[in-house]
Structures are given as C-alpha cells and as structure tokens.
C-alpha cells in the first residue's frame, strides 16, 4: 500500500541528500582553499555554511512534524530518528569545514612550510566517507555503512602521521611553529569530519538493522 507518509519520507531523504551534497562541497573547497592558496574559496565556504545551517533547521522541523503527525513505528521511526541525528552530524561537518577554511586564511598569508600531500589525501578520504555514508542511507546499504566505519582508522593514522611530521619541523626550527600548528589543526578538523561520517554510518546501520553498534557495543 502506498502511503502519504512515504511521500513525506522521500521529501526528508532528498533534503538530507541535498545537505550532504552541500557538505561534501564545503569540505572539498576548504581543503582546496588551503592547498591552492585561494582566499576567495574561504569566503565561499563560510557563505555556504549558512545555507547548511538553514537546511539543518528545516530538516529538524520536518522530522518533528513527521513524529507528531504520523507517530511512526519500527523502521519508519528508526529512519526519522536517524535522520535527525545524521542532520546534526552533517551540520557539524559543515562547521569543521569552516574551521579548515579559517585555518587556510591564515596559512596562505605565510610562505609554504612544506608541500601538502597528506592533507589533501585526508580531505578526499573524509569527503568520500561522508558521501558513502549518505549513499548507504539512501540505498539502504548496511555493508557500505560498515565499510565507512572501518575507513576511519585510515584517516586517524594519516592524522597521526601529519602530526609527527610537523613535530619534526617545529623541533628543528621554532619559527615554523605557527604555520605547523595551523596545519596540525587542519588535520585534526579532517579527522573530526571522518568521525562524524562514522557516526552517520552507525546511525544508518541502526536504521537498517535495528542494531546499535556505537561504542563497540557488539564486542562487549
């Protein structure tokens, strides 16, 4: 039976997709602003984040409306609740992209400390994690969601690698500290983005399987 509620749900889904597309875009632009030293991209990221913030409120209101008017149960309830959480994660990813853009604004005022190799790699990985997490939601693909969770380790180890490398620069020459710290922070922000993508994947698995895998509950 086709339900009116299904139309509402697909409306919610398409808004989440739109939000995710915007978020992937700001991740990519914030890293690009840093790597290609483009100040105009910084402002673009900040402006787009406002759109993301408005969309977050819209999605929140829609979810509340669906809960109040339809009192969904089972898979529908899990979807709406997961959507609320995913919405929140996406918004925070947007904030992290703004953080990266702000670091970029400072970094590009100074001469290049070193060629940036790991940071753009991390950026691509994190962005792909967000994309795949949302694809897993839309395509109801719990295998993909599980894979996204596992990719988080890769991003973490890149972040550690960046930190160790920049530490050697700072030890050798204290004059590099300001620039190195900025880059360490960028690594940290990207690592946080990957964490948010992992959270999204966990929410997707809860929606699809009704199983909570957060905090390694399953292993306990």
């Amino acid at each position: 039976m086709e339900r009116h509620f299904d139309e509402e749900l697909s409306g919610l889904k398409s808004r989440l997709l739109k939000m995710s597309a915007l978020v992937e875009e700001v991740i990519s632009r914030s890293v690009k602003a840093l790597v290609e030293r483009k100040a105009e991209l910084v402002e673009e990221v900040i402006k787009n984040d406002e759109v993301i913030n408005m969309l977050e409120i819209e999605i929140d209101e829609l979810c509340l409306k669906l809960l109040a008017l339809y009192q969904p149960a089972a898979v529908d309830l899990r979807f709406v609740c997961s959507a609320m959480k995913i919405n929140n994660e996406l918004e925070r990813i947007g904030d992290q992209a703004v953080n990266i853009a702000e670091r970029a604004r400072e970094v590009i005022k100074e001469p290049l400390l070193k060629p940036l190799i790991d940071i753009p790699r991390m950026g691509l990985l994190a962005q792909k994690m967000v994309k795949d997490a949302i694809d897993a939601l839309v395509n109801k693909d719990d295998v993909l969601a599980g894979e996204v969770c596992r990719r988080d380790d890769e991003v973490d180890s890149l972040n550690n690698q960046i930190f160790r490398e920049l530490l050697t620069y700072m030890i050798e020459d204290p004059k590099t500290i300001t620039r190195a710290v900025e880059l360490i922070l960028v690594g940290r922000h990207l690592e946080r983005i990957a964490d948010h993508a992992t959270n999204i994947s966990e929410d997707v698995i809860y929606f699809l399987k009704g199983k909570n895998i957060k905090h390694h509950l399953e292993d306990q």
Partner: protein
Amino acid sequence: MVKLVHSPYPSGHRQSIVHNETNIRISIRDLNIWYASARAVKDVSLDIEKNKVTAIIGPSGCGKSTLIRAVNRMNDIIPGVKVKGEILLDGKNIYDEDIDVVTIRKMVGMVFQRSNPFPKSIFENVAYGLKINGFPGKKKLAERIEQSLKDAALWDEVKDRLGDSALDLSGGQQQRLCIARALAVEPEVVLFDEPCSALDPVATARIEELIQELKEKYTIVIVTHNMQQAARISDFCTFLMLGELIEFDKTDKIFTTPSKKVTEDYITGRFG
C-alpha cells in the same frame, strides 16, 4: 532473574522470549479454534506474565477476539466452536473436563468493546456478580462495591447517585462501570476486548490510565485495533495474522525493531 525461555514444545509457531518464568500466569499451548470448519486460531502458543499488560494486535479477522475469548471460555457459548490445545491458568488447564466454567469466569473477568451495563442501578450492576455468588453481608457488599468502583476510577463520579440507572451514565463512565463489575468478583486476570473503540479520546485516556493502575493487582490481556494504544499501555505485544501468531515480544521491541517483516509492515501501516 530473567532468562530466555524456550518452549519445550517442538511445533513451528513457537516464540522464545525473555520472560521471567516464575511469573507466568497463563500459558497458551498449541491452541486451535474452529468455527465449524473454519480454523480461526492456528497452533498459537503464548505465555502471559502476571501483573503485566499483554496486548494482542492484528488486522480484522485475524483471530484476536477469538483468542482472548478462549481465555475465559466465552467461545463455549457460540455454537459450532471447537477448541483444541491447552490454556493453563496457574498451571491448570481450563479446558480440562473437571473444570467449572463459572469458576474460570470468576477468575478471568472480561470487559467488552461496547459497554454493556445491565438496565439496573449503578450499585446493582456492580453487586450483580457478588449476589449471584451468594456474597454474605450487606455491609461487606457495600464495601466491596465501593472498592471496585474506586479501582475502576469511577467512585468519585457516582458515589452520590449509586441508585441511579447505569444507563444514565456517559459512554466512558459505562465502560468503567463494566470494569468495576468485572473487578467486584476479584478476578486474577482481566481481559479487555477493544475497550476503547467506542470511546472519545478523553474517556480513552482515562481507561488507559486505569489499565496501567490495574496491572498492579491483576494480569491484563487487551485486544486493540489502536496500535498507539498497544504501544502506550502494554508490556508485551502479540501480533496475529490469519489466526497465526507471527511475533510475540516486549512491546518496545515490537515497535522499534520487530523481528519479522510482516509485523513491521503491519505496525507501520503498509497493510492492514
């Protein structure tokens, strides 16, 4: 201690569920019920815990009412009904030959979809079951009636007009009067067959509150068409379809993560 109880019976419709084994008041075992040649209930096995609310949900004609009526042998009075299987009330099969049906119905009270007070006074309605059972003493009778009306959350509304006709009460009050009437004979189990389907939302909310309070003293089984109602008031929930028990579990499990696709389709309104 809560442990996973697996039914000792080998048949295919068994459900294992987290039940506290010592708290089981009613055990339905391999129950089959026929109306002439039509089988309305098929191999249903189910444990009902004491001092809990167990809801039975399912689409129209799935056998919910037939099943609940079997628990106090109300189906006996319908011609052509055949019952096979066991219903153990505190370990004793209520379909055994040496069982007195009247005693069973005293132990297992019932409230119906439409309130059905007798065309008598409020007092007489509640007193009826006690009087035909030869309840001794006028003073004690009055006390019991007051207590029953209080348990049914009706006392404050009717205490000054116990002699008035029960038919002058509102629909919601009539239904609570029927609950008081059922409680007066001090049953162990109270069956509710869609008790709110003829009531407005306010009267429904009162009955739901009442059921929550009643489970302190009684074991409750309720058939309902209203899924939100089952979700709100029950501890355990049974989903029946075409006479078969599809899923039985804790209510919060059924409404968040049901194990079966059909259950999910039903409670999310994809069919039914």
